[in-house]
């Protein structure tokens, strides 16, 4: 897609290859061409989006770091969209993630960010026409809004069209964890549009429903929807008065903000791995040796973007960022460890985003045509991959053949660092306490030869008396 196309058929072709996740709003589409993020705006939005551009809202939000910087493009690529009213170019977010991969704290932060953004936009005479969690992305632990076409001119009395979407994509997943202690990730991944109030309400207890916000945003809309379907609401009277004063809209947003600010995860069960950083099998000097090897790897490789597989509470991600890596994305299957990692990133203002994800079941490509939300691997753009105390969780914990574990890790980046944990290690003995798994093929020598078949081993550092070894590699 380097040449600028000119014929009508080629124009049509260019206009059909939009980002598979941008089909919903016919007001415009997103295209990724030659590394540029372009967004077409159709003529039907000329009045509305013209107002947004003239109001200075886009620049004001971008200056404050709240929205990706967006302006009309001067690229020749614009010629590929002759039917568009405007072609914009947006700043690229380094790594796209989805709410079903976020920690509770990240989802809560995104929800509060969306409400604050809506209030600010209303204050400037604009409005947000939707409330999709997918429109919020993260730079480290800081949220940023990416969908500028959600911004419109405010019209007196218009209802909040995104109310239900906000509840399904932000409020209900947070309530699932806050009321019942269930992480939202698995349910949300299976229901991309979010958790429906009709499905959540039967699970909530009476004491959860005895809350003004739950009554107002979940119980009442569900009852009214049922009454409407059953014909018990006088539709003509309701319809004649379907106007929401701006003050009431602002009060709704502020009320939700207060309610969500106070939500905390309920019933934190003892976590298997959240205390790993302080309760592990390393002696003090072994831990220091491991830190030195990781630091040396980053100082030599100078990676811009690092993937930390099994990031736990983010101790090593922080070390790598302090050693010179520009940004890090972490994968952690244990929700509590991931929460602590997010807290570390937020408190330290680190460019580190830990995601709740089981490596043996990483996010698949899904949604419309299985392309709307690309898989974790498809989105991966990393300069280095680090897998510390990780491979044995797949190779032994999940019975994945060692060769496949190595192939999977090595594919993520041109260079990396993998810790091999030998079978005599106390952690593996604990994992095998209740089962008798034959481990003939699991050895340091087989690990070495399997890795050497896929990459050049540049360094080996033994870091523990039990034989744990860090292998640095570079792909051929």
């Amino acid at each position, binding site marked *: 897609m380097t040449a600028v196309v000119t014929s009508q058929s080629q124009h049509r072709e260019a206009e059909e290859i939009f980002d598979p996740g941008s089909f*919903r709003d016919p007001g415009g589409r997103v295209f990724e061409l030659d590394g540029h993020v372009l967004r077409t705006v159709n003529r039907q939005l000329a009045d509305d989006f013209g107002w947004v551009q003239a109001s200075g809202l886009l620049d004001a939000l971008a200056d404050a770091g709240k929205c990706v910087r967006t302006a009309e493009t001067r690229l020749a690529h614009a010629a590929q969209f002759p039917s568009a009213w405007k072609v914009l170019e947006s700043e690229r977010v380094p790594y796209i993630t989805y709410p079903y991969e976020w920690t509770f704290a990240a989802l809560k932060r995104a929800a509060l960010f969306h409400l604050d953004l809506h209030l600010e936009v209303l204050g400037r005479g604009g409005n947000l026409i939707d409330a999709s969690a997918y429109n919020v992305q993260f730079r480290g632990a800081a949220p940023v809004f990416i969908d500028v076409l959600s911004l419109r001119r405010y019209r007196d*009395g218009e*209802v909040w069209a995104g109310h239900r979407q906000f509840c399904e994509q932000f409020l209900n997943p947070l309530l699932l964890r806050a009321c019942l202690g269930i992480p939202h990730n698995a349910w949300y991944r299976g229901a991309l549009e979010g958790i429906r109030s009709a499905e959540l309400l039967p699970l909530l207890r009476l004491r959860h429903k005895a809350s003004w916000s739950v009554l107002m945003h979940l119980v009442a*809309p569900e009852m009214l*929807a049922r009454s409407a379907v059953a*014909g018990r609401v006088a539709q003509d009277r309701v319809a004649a*008065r379907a106007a*929401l004063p701006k003050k*009431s809209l602002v009060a709704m947003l502020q009320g939700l903000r207060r309610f969500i600010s106070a939500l905390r995860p309920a019933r934190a069960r003892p976590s298997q791995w959240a205390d790993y950083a302080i309760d592990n099998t390393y002696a003090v000097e072994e831990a220091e040796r491991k830190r030195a090897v990781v630091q040396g790897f980053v100082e030599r490789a100078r990676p811009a973007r690092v993937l930390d597989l099994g990031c736990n509470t983010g101790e090593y991600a922080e070390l790598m960022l302090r050693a010179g890596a520009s940004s890090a994305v972490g994968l952690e299957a244990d929700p509590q460890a991931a929460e602590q990692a997010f807290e570390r990133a937020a408190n330290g203002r680190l460019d580190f985003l830990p995601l709740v994800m089981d490596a043996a079941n990483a996010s698949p490509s899904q949604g419309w045509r299985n392309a709307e939300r690309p898989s974790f691997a498809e989105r991966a753009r990393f300069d280095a991959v680090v897998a510390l105390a990780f491979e044995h969780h797949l190779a032994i914990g999940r019975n994945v053949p060692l060769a496949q574990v190595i192939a999977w890790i090595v594919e993520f980046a041109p260079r990396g660092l993998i810790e091999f944990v030998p079978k005599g290690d106390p952690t593996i003995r604990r994992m095998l306490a209740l089962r008798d798994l034959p481990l003939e093929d699991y050895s340091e020598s087989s690990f070495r030869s399997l890795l050497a078949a896929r990459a050049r081993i540049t360094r080996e550092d033994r870091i523990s008396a039990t034989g744990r070894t860090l292998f640095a590699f570079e792909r051929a």
Partner: protein
Amino acid sequence: MSRAFAVLILAACASPAYAYLDPGTGSVILQSLIGIAAIGAAAVGTFFGRIKAFFLGTKEAPKSPPTGDTVQRQ
């Protein structure tokens, strides 16, 4: 019948602004009720303000500063 009813409500509630998202019947009815309550509360407030002004013999404070015209008439 029920579907036609829901469509009626949504069509009647539809804002003239461009909207691609289905806001959901329950949410729109809820917001309509909030809107009615807000307008009702404002009306009640104005009514009591007038009664109070009548009995106390005071005038309501002007909601906006006097315009140039008013100053000229004085």
